[in-house]
């Protein structure tokens, strides 16, 4: 996907020079390997900062909330779905945006790469087509990208943007016959006791840094419920029950809105698979409401409309 970089720079330069947009949001290379940073370019002379490769896993939609200027933004499948969700939820209007669509072949899981080189210090990661080369101080190895995809990218069925003004390349063939929810189904089979044990073990390392919340484009409340102090909805320590409450509620706030972009999981400093919560809700949204978030500008999400035939087996 490296070849998109030049194209993105070209488009950004044109948009800024022709005054189509006031700012362009994209990624730049991070200060450490595999960590691209978001960047907002306002001057056509700065477009050389823009970059795209398989480490662009943060969700840029975060930077759109309540903006008033005209913005150009790069968007792959999941990011474009988040932009649609933002528009539906009236956080930004479609006319303000110039969406540069990117057919995405998935992001590389940086944790898997570190594991694969035995946690040596990585100096450089160079991508080349569907392979990538990892350089450490006295070690070098080339890997296949398909073996190192982020888990959400491996099961992705929306690699092409759903909404765009122009594309940097031809749309890709979507993946088919994907069993997306195998892990959730496995958990569903467990007894209550096993489930509780599973999630307890999963959340014990959580340090409540709220990085998952901050990375999530859906979490744009001015004050998050965990930061409220009057009333204080949830305890602030790393007490397991408080941590659990935070994670359950965070996930539930994303019900019917999550696009499984994987930003939450990517940013977790202790590597908790936080998508295990949102995925369950995505599965429910799909099974109970035949809904996948952010696919259309004209449809309201299931949790803000009432239909007489809505699922209501839980209520008596």
């Amino acid at each position: 996907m490296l070849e998109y970089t030049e194209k993105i720079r070209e488009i950004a330069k044109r948009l800024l020079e022709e005054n189509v947009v006031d700012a362009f949001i994209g990624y730049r290379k991070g200060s450490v390997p595999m960590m691209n940073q978001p960047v907002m370019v306002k001057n056509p002379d700065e477009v050389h900062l823009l970059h795209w490769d398989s480490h662009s896993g943060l969700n840029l939609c975060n930077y759109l909330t309540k903006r008033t200027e005209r913005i150009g933004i790069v968007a792959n499948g999941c990011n474009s779905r988040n932009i649609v969700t933002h528009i539906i939820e009236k956080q930004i209007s479609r006319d303000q945006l110039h969406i540069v669509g990117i057919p995405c072949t998935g992001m590389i899981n940086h944790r898997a790469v570190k594991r694969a080189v035995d946690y040596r210090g990585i100096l450089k990661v160079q991508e080349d087509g569907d392979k990538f080369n990892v350089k450490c101080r006295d070690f070098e190895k080339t890997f296949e990208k398909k073996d190192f995809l982020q888990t959400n990218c491996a099961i992705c069925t929306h690699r092409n943007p759903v909404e765009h003004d122009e594309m940097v390349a031809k749309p890709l063939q979507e993946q088919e016959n994907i069993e997306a929810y195998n892990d959730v189904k496995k958990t569903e089979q467990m007894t209550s006791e096993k489930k509780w044990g599973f999630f307890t073990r999963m959340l014990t390392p959580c340090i409540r840094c709220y990085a998952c919340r901050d990375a999530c484009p859906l979490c744009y409340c001015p004050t998050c419920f965990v930061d409220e102090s009057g009333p204080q909805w949830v305890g602030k320590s790393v007490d397991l029950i408080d941590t659990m409450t935070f994670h359950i509620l965070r996930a539930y706030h994303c019900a019917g809105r999550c696009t499984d972009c994987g930003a939450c999981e990517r940013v977790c400093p202790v590597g908790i698979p936080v998508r295990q919560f949102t995925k369950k809700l995505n599965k429910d949204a799909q099974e109970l409401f035949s809904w996948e978030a952010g696919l259309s500008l004209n449809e309201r999400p299931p949790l803000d409309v009432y239909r007489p035939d809505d699922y209501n087996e839980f209520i008596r």
Partner: protein
Amino acid sequence: LKNLLEHIGIEPGRLHFSWVSSSEAAKFVEVALEVSQAVEKLGPANYLTKGKAQVA
């Protein structure tokens, strides 16, 4: 919400939702009995509960 809580290990039968109008006294009694019986059967809640604050 019910699905998610049961997914993380809250026992089915611990959490109940119902809609009872102010004119439906009989239904209220029925629901209350049903809930209390279901919960009694499960015994005390052990998951997602907080004990007294423990001071080190």
